[in-house]
């Protein structure tokens, strides 16, 4: 069953290489992830073997599939107007990416997981390359180089871990059981490589440099997938490996590093966002900020909170990228200055843009507020102050553009997108985020996170 789930997207990926029919591809893009969710939610008996689906895996798998489905629905409308001549080539990497994502979440073998994470890099590089122009090329090249180096560094960590466990197993559960016997000093070295390696893909400062380029050059649906899924894949790998440090008695060590990287990313993202002129880069840096916050939450030793944060961030960021996708459709420009007074010219999109930015800034009733509140709740006082400073700086940087963008003097768009789906999809996501903010699924996520070795 799990093998079916894993390989489900692959034939469609090959099929999509041939097919040019956008509508059919879009519908397939919606149904395959939905089908995957259904498959994933079926009860599983095969708890042995390389493929397993525990609480954490299920959580991320369902989240990823849901986002793929949502993005596919949006893409139906987004590519409809024919502005994008390469639209059909969106879907092959889409399915390949989905395949790699499934693989990363389904496999319980830490080495295989690495393979799939690398696979997701390659598949998403194709998404970044979508527009095939100079900028896309530049972004893809940088992404590929930095991502590959990062992933190679993490492979060093994987090898060291494997060797430290006596070369017997890379199964996650087995590794958890054996981790206590590993030599702590060397395990620290291994973790350093893992952190820098996977951290590159999570988008942690100072390995983040590929992130804004890749996000801003990909078409909006792809940007949403990058932010909402790709980063989570890497984060998931980091989560699994960090879990190994707990039975090894290195939880404090690993969490210290995570806190440092989390805060550094937060502060750096705030700084980069402040002087930003391109709205997609702004959103990309905001992803860096929130991944930093998720890593921080993990650094606090509260894995369920980190999971919650990634969940909220994925949903919110997808809504934001899709809302700004509408802006791009209307203005054909990613420059903040060229867009203004959306509430006068595109009221629906303007509202979505304002709300999604405010949601990203972490205001209630949006869910990220809850996650940030919880992170503060679990922080020691000094960390609280640092966290708050970073958060405030980032908040201001994210939210200030709203003034001009939404409420300011109006600039006329080149065209007004008509399809209602363009508004409905991000609106639905935002409503979900509000719902999650009002009724955060803390209990459920904690239950799912019980497989992780942290003491509650």
């Amino acid at each position, binding site marked *: 069953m799990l093998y079916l789930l894993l390989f489900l997207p692959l034939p469609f990926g090959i099929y999509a290489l041939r097919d040019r029919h956008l509508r059919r591809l879009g519908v397939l893009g919606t149904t395959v992830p939905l089908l995957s969710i259904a498959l994933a939610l079926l009860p599983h008996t095969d708890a042995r073997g390389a493929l397993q689906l525990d609480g954490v895996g299920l959580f991320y798998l369902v989240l990823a599939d849901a986002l793929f489905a949502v993005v596919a629905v949006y893409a139906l409308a987004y590519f409809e107007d024919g502005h994008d001549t390469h639209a059909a080539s969106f879907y092959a990497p889409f399915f390949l990416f989905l395949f790699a994502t499934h693989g990363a979440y389904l496999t319980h*073998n830490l*080495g*295989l997981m*690495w*393979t*799939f994470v*690398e*696979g997701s890099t*390659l598949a998403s*590089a*194709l998404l970044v*390359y979508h527009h*095939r*122009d*100079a*900028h896309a*090329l*530049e*972004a*893809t*090249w*940088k992404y*590929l*180089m930095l991502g*590959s*180096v990062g992933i*190679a560094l993490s*492979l*060093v960590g*994987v*090898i*060291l871990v*494997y*060797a*430290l466990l*006596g*070369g017997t197993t*890379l199964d996650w559960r087995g590794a958890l059981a054996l981790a206590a016997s590993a*030599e702590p*000093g*060397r395990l620290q*070295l291994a973790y350093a490589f893992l952190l820098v390696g996977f951290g590159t893909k999570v988008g942690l400062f100072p390995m983040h440099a590929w992130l*804004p*380029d890749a996000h*801003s*050059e990909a078409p909006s649906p792809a940007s949403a997938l990058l932010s909402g899924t790709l980063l989570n894949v890497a984060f998931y790998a980091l989560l699994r490996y960090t879990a190994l440090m707990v039975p090894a008695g290195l939880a404090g060590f690993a969490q210290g590093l995570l806190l440092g990287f989390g805060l550094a990313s937060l502060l750096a993202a705030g700084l*980069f966002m402040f*002087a*930003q*002129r*391109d709205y997609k*880069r702004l959103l990309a840096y905001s992803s860096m900020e929130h991944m930093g916050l998720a890593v921080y939450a993990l650094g606090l030793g509260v894995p369920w909170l980190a999971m919650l944060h990634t969940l909220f961030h994925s949903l919110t960021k997808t809504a934001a990228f899709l809302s700004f996708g509408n802006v791009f459709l209307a203005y054909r420009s990613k420059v903040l200055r060229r867009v203004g007074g959306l509430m006068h010219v595109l009221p629906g999109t303007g509202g979505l843009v304002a709300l999604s930015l405010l949601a990203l800034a972490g205001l209630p009733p949006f869910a990220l507020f809850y996650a940030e509140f919880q992170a503060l709740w679990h922080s020691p006082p000094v960390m609280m102050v640092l966290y708050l400073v970073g958060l405030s700086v980032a908040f201001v940087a994210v939210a200030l553009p709203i003034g001009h963008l939404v409420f300011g003097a109006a600039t006329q768009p080149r065209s007004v997108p008509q399809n209602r789906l363009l508004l409905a999809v991000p609106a639905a996501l935002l409503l979900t985020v509000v719902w999650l903010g009002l009724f955060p699924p803390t209990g459920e996520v904690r239950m799912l996170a019980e497989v992780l070795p942290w003491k509650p």
Partner: protein
Amino acid sequence: MTRGILVAAFLMVGRRSLDASIRLYALQNVFVAALAFALADGSVHLLVAGALLFVVKGIAIPWFLLVVLERLDVSHEIESYLAVAPSLLVGGLLVALAYRLGQGFVLAGALLPEAVPVALALLLLGMLIMSTRRKAVTQVIGFLTLENGVFLLALAESHGLPLFIELGVAIDTFAAVVLAGILMFRLKGVFGHVDTSRMRDLRG
């Protein structure tokens, strides 16, 4: 054998010819493959891995790179931020550093402790090549060198990784190189050059 790998890698830093670099890279892989065979001691797993390495990295990838280089129609000279002498100096320092740090990475059950510093050196030299050489092709070679270091590390610390993972890694590497090759063609087509230091449009 390990010394051979190291020398091959170190020479890469000192050469100004791309073809030579690629050949040195192939040589590296031959050495690594030989090492794998030597260590195999009858275990199928390492034999297969060594063969795979020899075929994919020793032959296929260098060949692919040479073809790409031929088709790209760019000069075969390496352009670098660092001239040869400083490159060698920094490379030497990095190798020294690798030997200095190497002991820290040698695990209790290491199969080939003396290869660990070499692996580290490869890693560092790969990074050096990547971050100082301007041409896209050289960056790929740097990456591959780095990757070789990782593989060597796996070999040195234990019997490599489990086979199917090894396979996955190989596929991924190959796919990455192919993707990079395609991109290089595009780079040449779009920009008219493959100088990555001149791709600085995306910033801020």
